[in-house]
């Protein structure tokens, strides 16, 4: 079995607010292995983004244990173990696309020639070759998000954390980027953790779907899929796909019924 990239046991995170404690995550157990594509899906407030941020050491858990590459999340972050793609592209407007992609490399002190080679390689990988000299405002939203993915890939982390990266895009662009992302995952054999609230997106992309539910944020189902790696969008019409999508929807509904 492949090595554990993320190992979470009994994890909880409670925010203390004026109106009392908010249980963002409660008793979460999860193992993510090398090469997996794991989606967190659930309604807003279910803690899926918080869980991703805990893995990235952008939030601190308040209970339980978590290891990233066998280290604490902070140690893993300091070793630059992961690339993070946010909901918004968060490109720096004063840097052109190439210099946005090389930003992490500059911070890590890589020589200039090597930085430019990396930028070229990863911009081509996300189909943005030739846009090096453009500034972010000259690109469409989908292109900007692709540039931000190239930026996360540029320092070649084995783990890619993606927080609803295509949430703000229209469905046509989203479908297209989903296909590209899947091919990229296949080619680079990275481990991907992907937050979404779209059922088709989660089922299409993932090798493992983690269904979550709010108040308190918790995992209610984990579904393994075994679609072929080179799958295309047409797989969404197959009975197997619909069956898994149905199970995800049932899980989400059960999580909600708990509320009423």
């Amino acid at each position: 079995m492949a090595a554990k990239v993320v190992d979470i046991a009994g994890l909880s995170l409670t925010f203390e607010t004026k109106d009392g404690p908010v249980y963002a995550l409660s008793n979460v157990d999860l193992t993510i292995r090398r090469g997996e594509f794991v989606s967190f899906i659930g309604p807003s407030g279910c803690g899926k983004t918080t869980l991703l941020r805990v893995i990235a050491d952008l939030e601190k858990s308040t209970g339980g244990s978590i290891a990233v590459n066998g280290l604490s999340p902070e140690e893993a972050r300091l070793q630059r173990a992961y690339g993070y793609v946010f909901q918004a592209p968060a490109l720096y407007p004063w840097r052109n696309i190439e210099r946005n992609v090389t930003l992490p490399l500059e911070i890590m002190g890589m020589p200039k020639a090597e930085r430019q080679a990396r930028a070229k390689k990863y911009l081509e990988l996300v189909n943005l070759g030739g846009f090096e000299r453009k500034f972010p405002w000259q690109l469409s939203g989908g292109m900007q998000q692709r540039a931000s993915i190239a930026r996360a890939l540029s320092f070649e982390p084995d783990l890619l954390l993606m927080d609803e990266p295509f949430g703000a895009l229209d469905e046509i662009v989203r479908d297209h980027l989903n296909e590209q992302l899947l091919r990229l995952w296949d080619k680079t054999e990275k481990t991907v953790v992907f937050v979404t609230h779209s059922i088709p997106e989660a089922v299409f992309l993932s090798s493992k779907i983690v269904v979550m539910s709010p108040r308190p944020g918790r995992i209610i189902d984990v579904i393994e899929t075994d679609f072929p790696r080179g799958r295309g969008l047409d797989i969404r019409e197959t009975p197997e796909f619909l069956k898994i999508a149905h199970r995800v929807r049932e899980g989400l509904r059960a999580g909600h019924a708990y509320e009423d």
Partner: protein
Amino acid sequence: MAAAKPKPIARLFAGHAGPVAVLGLALVALWYAGAVWLNADLQIDAFARAGTDWNFTDLVAGTWAQERPLLPAPHQVLAELWRTTVETGIASKRSLVFHGWVTLSSTLLGFAAGALLGILLAVGIVHVRVLEKSLMPWIIASQTIPILAVAPMVIVVLGAIGLKGLVPKSVISTYLCFFPVAIGMVKGLRAPDLLQLDLMRTYSASARQTFFYLRWPTSLPFLFAGLKVAISISLVGAIIAELPTGAQAGLGARLLAGSYYGQTIQIWSALVAAALMAALLVALMGAIERQVARLMGARS
């Protein structure tokens, strides 16, 4: 279908030039009218003393040509400006270029020191929580003290320890112009949004790297807004600093000498020179700002 070519006048008013020119002309007309109104009493007295008959045309012509009018007419001020800049050698004590340079040099020195001080204070305040609590009230309090009251003391105290001339004057400018820079920069250095800061965190960037890669570039528009205010009040500070000790040179000295001897035309020409200088300095800052924005990929 091609758009109709705009008429010349319409085109003029599409930009800045038209409206500015119209407003300028209106102000000049108002100024001439004001000169007639304010100087009329003096002129009527003068006619009475000379025993000459006068009509309205004489009165208007007279009010626009007095030697020491209450309000000099624009052309008198222009003539004085011409005489004291072009027709007088710049080394002369009567040259407005000489006096203007004295004031400008102290303005620029004070501005440079003030901008630097403002930036350093802002960097400290943004990075060290203790500094925010301890410095901010003092910074604000410093600007509530009337500068006219402080300036003479500063000049005298610095003079007593052997600092004379340029430095004490630019200290007053510095005192005035660090404030807008500091306030603007505190806001600017805090302007990066959480997402951009989180991004730096995922790269394990140091505080120093976060500053140079993110906070500093984000703060530049705020810096320039502060610098534009700062450079004009730096000029005000330099002029004020020239007043209290009866400085021998500078636009402030010209103002003071003019008011001692009732030379209103001299006062107004110094005022106009100061205003022109301020406008040029602010325009220069604006040009630098646009150039920086262009280099930073702003949409043109």
